[in-house]
């Protein structure tokens, strides 16, 4: 699914975020990217959904060389990737339903289809009753679930979650993780960055540790440990 070869990223400011990163993620896998703040986790995510371009090396997703995409090809790629953010990135003036429907409307999905798919996405994240509510009326965990619903409503083969539990309490974090697992079990490849030691240690999933722009460890059923805070 994802193939990362010798990827380095140096920002124009001179900050070197990634250095010679190699990583393979198979289709249907669930991978945690862990590491301290500023280790390069978010940069790697941005390279994956082509918000940034690698300075060196090659990233392919489903056989497509992401770095070579331009203009409309980028939007084609992004239609196949769901993204979940730490700050949710919901539209404050639109209801939960509209927020989730947004991605489908852009694709020109029919009204009936939108109704059906938004409802089932909200069902999956447990917010079926909250369609007509505005985001600010929800708790942080609920907002993150809306963000999740939006990311998967288009049933993308790949889901990227960048610090999805960063702003949430442990209880709520668990809910989100359970949802990610559920989505993963439907066949979606999930890559999730996190700081949350507790979650990582208990999930027993593949853990890739990044420090200082390099991959320092890659464990099949790993824990969040080694020399990182």
């Amino acid at each position, binding site marked *: 699914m994802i193939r990362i070869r010798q990827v380095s990223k140096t920002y124009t400011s001179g900050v070197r975020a990634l250095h010679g990163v190699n990583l393979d993620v198979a289709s249907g896998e669930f991978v945690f990217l862990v590491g301290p703040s500023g280790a390069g986790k978010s940069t790697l995510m941005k390279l994956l959904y082509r918000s940034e371009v690698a300075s060196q090396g090659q990233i392919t997703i489903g056989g497509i060389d992401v770095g070579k995409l331009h*203009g409309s090809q980028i939007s084609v790629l992004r*239609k196949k990737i769901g993204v979940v953010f730490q700050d949710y990135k919901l539209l404050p003036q639109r209801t939960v339903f509209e927020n989730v429907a947004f991605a489908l409307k*852009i694709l*020109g999905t029919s009204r009936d289809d939108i109704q059906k798919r938004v409802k089932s996405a909200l069902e999956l994240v447990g917010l079926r009753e909250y369609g007509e509510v505005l985001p600010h009326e929800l708790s942080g965990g609920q907002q993150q679930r809306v963000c999740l619903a939006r990311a998967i409503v288009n049933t993308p083969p790949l889901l990227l979650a960048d610090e999805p539990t960063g702003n949430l309490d442990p209880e709520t974090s668990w809910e989100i993780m359970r949802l990610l697992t559920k989505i993963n079990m439907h066949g979606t490849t999930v890559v999730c960055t996190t700081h949350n030691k507790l979650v990582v240690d208990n999930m027993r999933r593949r853990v890739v540790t990044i420090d200082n722009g390099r991959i320092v460890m890659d464990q099949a059923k790993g824990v969040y440990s080694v020399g990182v805070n």
Partner: protein
Amino acid sequence: MESIKRRLRQLGFVWEEALVSISRSLWMSWVVIVTMAVSLSILGGFWMLSEELNDVAASIGSRIELMVFLDVDADAASTAREVRNLDGVQEVELVTREQAWEKLQTELGQEYDFRELVENPLPDTLRIKVDSPAEAPRVAREIGQLEAVEEIRYGQDLLAKIEQVARFTRLLGLAVTGILFMATLAVTGNTIRLAIQARRREIEIMQLVGASATFIHLPFLLEGLFFGLGGTVITAGVLFAWRTFVQSHLREIFPFLPIQTADLELLLLLGVLLAIGMGMGMIGSLLSVKRHLRQTAG
């Protein structure tokens, strides 16, 4: 078929987005529309004014006759033939001194026949109509070179003045409009920039869920077009009012001037203004979109 439906639904969504954007910044939209209307009204006003002046000049011109007074001993008939052959001459009427004398007598009254008292002092006269008023000076010059001609009279000074005023009006109109257009572009561009900033989040999310650049730009272009449309509608009102009230007043003040604009011309003018307005709205918005959306693209 399904792909066409899909496109139509996308267009519908773009349209909704444009309406949302306008409704969120009603006050700014209003400012842009009024600015646009002012520019277009002034352009249209100047245009109408210069058309009117042209009409005045043309109608005076069509009434222009060259009065050519011949030498007393000239051969009037052959001179008339010569003049008729000149370029730009439409019609030549020979008024012999006897006819003129007769006419004068008729005009002055019948009671008293002064023809018995004095000898006819009038010369033979040619009344000449020219093809177009612009040709009058040249024709006059050529006739003046004929030997038999004593003197030529026509309204050359008045005509020249009116044409000068019309030309000046057109230039002034173009200059003022040019400046106003730049202001309009700036205001439109700025409003779209604010709209883009107000919707940064939407744009970011649209980009992340895979909306194409065209898709993201279109609502703003529609907004610009809408400004042009709104501006033209107001301008239409202003110009109709101008025609109805101002022109009728002008007609009262200067009853001798043939002031009028045909409805068809006004519609044509509004059509042109609509095209200009929508063009300006779109260009203003396009400039802003190109400049302010590039950073977030990709």
